[in-house]
């Protein structure tokens, strides 16, 4: 039995390694679809077509569904791990054929588990900026999301969110009930806005259960480059080493010529 397992492990590795390298290329051709588990404390199995596609999927776990782009998953059911107890009966799910999407299993405003499908903005970001998306996927009422103390997104309900491009750097982010300034239910936290990167923040958990927290996801490589590099508005001065050397060479040549003239004069004399 142990040998059989080792064999399986070896085969697994042999197959997995090439697949790891192939995956990004595949993803670029069609859609990029990630599935995130965004419900704290609940391990699930995910079933489609009557069989488990993956098991023991727990909070924060992420699966790449890009290989299923354009397909219809029939009879998708999220079940409590190891049981037939259905937590989310999602029915048939058509996965987009192209685009960049995140599917997140999360709690609705009333605490009922649900699947949210969000399209991510992967357009190019201006040089020097990063992109921030926040999504309300927690069992909580409408909220305002504050950046550096100001409301960046107001009246955000469960299942909604917003995206903004910001200068790269750090912002202080916090979440408060809509229209209020306190209590701060998430944060305040220093959020690094990295240049050329899309940071997606999901508020998850439940306000009533005191399990509110955030999950994050990043999409890299959206940067653009400076238009140009201007590194001079005047000509080098003669004081520079290069000019000085030219000068020295010139003087030496002149001196040499002078010597020649003198010598010739002497010869004539």
């Amino acid at each position: 039995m142990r040998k059989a397992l080792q064999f399986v492990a070896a085969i697994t590795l042999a197959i997995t390694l090439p697949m790891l390298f192939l995956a990004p290329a595949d993803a670029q051709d069609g859609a990029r679809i990630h599935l995130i588990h965004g419900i704290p404390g609940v391990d699930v199995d995910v079933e489609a077509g009557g069989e488990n596609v993956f098991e023991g999927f727990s909070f924060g776990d992420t699966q790449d569904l890009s290989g299923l782009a354009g397909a219809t998953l029939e009879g998708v059911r999220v079940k409590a791990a190891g049981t037939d107890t259905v937590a989310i009966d999602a029915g048939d799910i058509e996965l987009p054929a192209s685009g960049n999407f995140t599917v997140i299993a999360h709690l609705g405003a009333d605490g009922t588990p649900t699947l949210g499908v969000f399209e991510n903005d992967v357009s190019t970001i201006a040089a020097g900026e990063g992109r921030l998306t926040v999504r309300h996927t927690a069992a909580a009422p409408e909220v305002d999301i504050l950046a550096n103390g100001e409301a960046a997104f107001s009246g955000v309900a469960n299942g909604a969110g917003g995206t903004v491009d910001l200068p790269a750097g750090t912002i202080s982010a916090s979440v408060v009930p809509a229209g209020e300034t306190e209590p701060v239910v998430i944060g305040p936290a220093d959020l690094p806005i990295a240049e050329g990167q899309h940071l997606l923040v999901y508020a998850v958990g439940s306000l009533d259960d005191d399990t509110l927290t955030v999950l994050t996801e990043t999409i890299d490589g959206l940067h653009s480059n400076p238009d140009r590099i201007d590194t001079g508005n005047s000509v080098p001065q003669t004081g520079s080493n290069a000019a000085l050397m030219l000068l020295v060479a010139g003087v030496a040549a002149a001196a040499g010529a002078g010597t020649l003239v003198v010598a010739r004069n002497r010869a004539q004399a």
Partner: protein
Amino acid sequence: MSLSLPLGSVFRSRPTRLVALALAVLLVGSACSSATTDPSTAAEAGADQDAATTAEQAPATDPADDGPAAGPDSGQATPGSDLSELVSELPPAPVGFPMADDGPQPTRLTIESLGIDRAPVISVGVETDGAMEVPPADQVGWYRYSPLPGQAGSSILAAHIAFDGENGVFVRLADVELGAVVEVTDEDGLTRSYRVETVDRYAKEQLPEDIVFARSGEERLVLVTCGGRFDPELRSYDDNVVVVATPLDQAS
């Protein structure tokens, strides 16, 4: 054969074609005890190697596929093993707010053969008009959105040839010889050495972005200044001088 526990854990760590198929077979088998599927079909498909080979070559004709769900007309969405093998596990989404991962920034640049001795390096970004920020004549700018020296990709250091009548740190950069040693020291005091591989001049609007602004791939130091014709009216040069240096320990 009690496969459920070990295969289950392998599957959890990283589903693969063979394991996924074996598991799918297994799941069909185990589901039989509690559900209504016909156990005989699954048991027959349990001739692992044959099933696996078939699935590898022609996933759509998986012999275990007698389920009621998606047919061939729905593209890739065939049930069980085929689904599993099209899905792969990724690193988990981090819980909690992320931290900035700033490494030690470069602070000094030395190119002995050009008489540049520990010139100060400062972090620069982008001007509002889209041009890269460049520091005063006596300093070198490290483009803070380019990789750090030592990381994959091109770490960009730019300095003036001359600014407002004052010679810049890179006044002689165009004259640097191939093989010349370039040293960059970071704020932790660590010095990295590079050797000059190429010296090229490009029209400013034709910079090879894949080399100058690469954020992945080969580790390079890219030194940039101005060169070519100087336009006295625009007070601007036509070209950029681009020097590419690679880590000394990798160079021959």
